[in-house]
């Protein structure tokens, strides 16, 4: 048991150590606002990519409007904070619930559609939400966006320092990604993957595909909304431009680059597509073109992505103890 304990706890402990010890110490050592921004942005996009991974990767529904729910979450958190003084600890789940409700409303009429028709419908919905954010000036402030003065506070204790904000974001993102991990690597995840492979067959096996689709869509939107709230709290200013079609495409590109159906892939893709353009910043503003080139070369040369689904599932089954030990080295089921 002792060696299996090391094996089981090693990878998760290393990840937690990286996010909560190593990165903050590096940040505190350099103490530059730019690095803090970059770290927070990477974490937020890692959560966004993971949330899209549930819908597009695991359930195979090509979703071109994830930025809409990201936007809804950000606006819910910002407007609740500005008008009603809702604190961080309530604002984040509230944003998630708001985005999930919006997703259920959207999902009910469109869930009947498959493949490309679903993609087009989500594209239209993303654009509609963007138009509402841009043009409903009375509620959203239109193109000027919303400015939030209240920072992140926990039970009256102000986490206004940059390190405090980083920890708030890191812990929220880690917990959210852990939940997504538990959903993906479980029998629920199996149902999603079955839905992706053949939805009619899944239906025939006794799984309510419509309920499953609406459910996963809402869960994914919930986490996108949480990411939106984090974005609103950390930048203090949101405008519709942050949630346009190109943001949806960026999130999709992250999932595709990392490998469809692979949770670590989505996170790796997010880190790559946020950090690579920043590293190339010296040459000029190459953010979008880097995204395009990375996406195209991965699709053509590594069709399974940087960390394919099979290796990702194997990794989680062996390293994260997501499966029961069978006889010998075999792993059985999910736990």
């Amino acid at each position, binding site marked *: 048991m002792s060696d299996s304990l090391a094996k089981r706890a090693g990878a998760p402990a290393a990840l937690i150590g990286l996010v909560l010890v190593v990165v903050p110490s590096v940040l505190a050592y350099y103490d530059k606002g730019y690095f803090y921004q970059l770290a927070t942005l990477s974490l937020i996009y890692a959560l966004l990519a993971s949330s899209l991974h549930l819908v597009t990767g695991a359930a195979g529904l090509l979703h071109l409007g994830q930025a809409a729910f990201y936007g809804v979450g950000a606006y819910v958190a910002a407007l609740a904070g500005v008008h009603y003084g809702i604190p961080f600890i309530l604002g984040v789940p509230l944003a998630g619930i708001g985005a999930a409700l919006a997703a259920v409303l959207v999902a009910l009429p469109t869930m009947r559609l498959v493949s*490309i028709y679903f993609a087009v419908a989500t594209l*239209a919905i993303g654009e509609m939400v963007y138009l509402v954010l841009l*043009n409903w000036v009375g509620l959203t402030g239109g193109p000027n966006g919303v400015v939030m003065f209240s920072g992140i506070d926990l039970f009256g204790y102000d986490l206004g320092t940059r390190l405090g904000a980083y920890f708030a974001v890191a812990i929220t993102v880690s917990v959210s990604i852990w939940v997504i991990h538990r959903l993906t690597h479980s029998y629920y995840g199996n149902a999603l993957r079955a839905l992706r492979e053949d939805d009619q067959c899944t239906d025939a096996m006794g799984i309510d595909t419509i309920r499953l689709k609406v459910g996963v869509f809402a869960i994914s939107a919930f986490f996108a909304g949480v990411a939106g709230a984090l974005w609103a709290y950390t930048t203090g200013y949101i405008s519709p431009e942050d949630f346009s079609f190109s943001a949806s495409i960026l999130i999709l590109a992250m999932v595709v680059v990392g490998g469809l159906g692979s949770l670590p892939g989505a996170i790796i893709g997010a880190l790559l597509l946020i950090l690579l353009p920043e590293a190339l910043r010296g040459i000029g503003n190459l953010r979008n073109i880097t995204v395009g080139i990375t996406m195209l070369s991965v699709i*053509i040369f590594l069709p399974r992505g940087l960390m394919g689904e099979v290796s990702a599932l194997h990794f989680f089954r062996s390293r994260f103890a997501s499966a029961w030990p069978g006889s010998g080295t075999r792993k059985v089921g999910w736990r």
Partner: protein
Amino acid sequence: MIDPYYLQQLVIGLSLGLTYALIAIGFTLIFGVLNVVNFAHSEIYTIGAFTGLLLITAFAPPLLAVVFVVLAVGALAGFGLERLAFKPFRRFSDEASLKSRAMRESTLMSSLAVSIIVREALTLAFGSQFQQVPLAYLINQPIRLGPVTIVRGDIIILVVAALMLGGLQYLLTRTRIGLSIRAVSDNHMGAKYAGINTDRTIIMTFALGSMMGAAAGILVGLYYGAIFPAMGFEPSIKAFVAMVMGGLVSIPGAVITALILGVSESMATTFVSSVWSDMVAYSFLILTLVFFPQGLFGKGRERV
């Protein structure tokens, strides 16, 4: 008697619809053959506009010559696009991978990636703002027709759209190339077994569709005097909506729904602020997908 105001709005809407139709024709042609959405069509449109603009500023040739060069560049761009974003995914030609959804969606994403690269390359080269278009080439001289006013560009675009539609119908129904295009769009494997060079047919289709997209780009660019790297995005989404509403494979259907879309948008500005007019297209799209999954003019096809 109809109020001249509404008549004028109707004419504006029809000309708007025609610009969508110009793009929708090429879009639908490519979708019909490959059954995949070509997201890079909007960039072909932009490339057409920029080629025309470069030509005009460098040599100032007559408009007709510009259009012909743009057609050639469009065909070339379509060829390149097919090689880059679509060909790699036809490595496997067995029945299963032709039907596989993952296959179709990977071409969707590769064309999306190509579209991002082209748009950003144009932005890096020319900047994202409107380009200066020589005034002599703008096709917006007004013409009065009774109570309404149209511009010269309306007539040019109408003629070009009619020529494209007529020419395409002729090509598809009366020539061997058209026959092979229809055969491939009907059944890829069957066409192959019957001895049709499907690879060449697909390239032909891309060249044809992209020629039309590029011509649309320069005409609409000169019509509005607005040529910029992101110009393709919005009209392409509208053209896409028109294609879906028209039933995806029906080219005349796409043209008719493009006109309906244009008129609805211009009429909508009478009742609501013009910033909301884009909402019309998206609501139409959702309503069509939910209530008429076959499109308004489509025939029966696999489930959506």
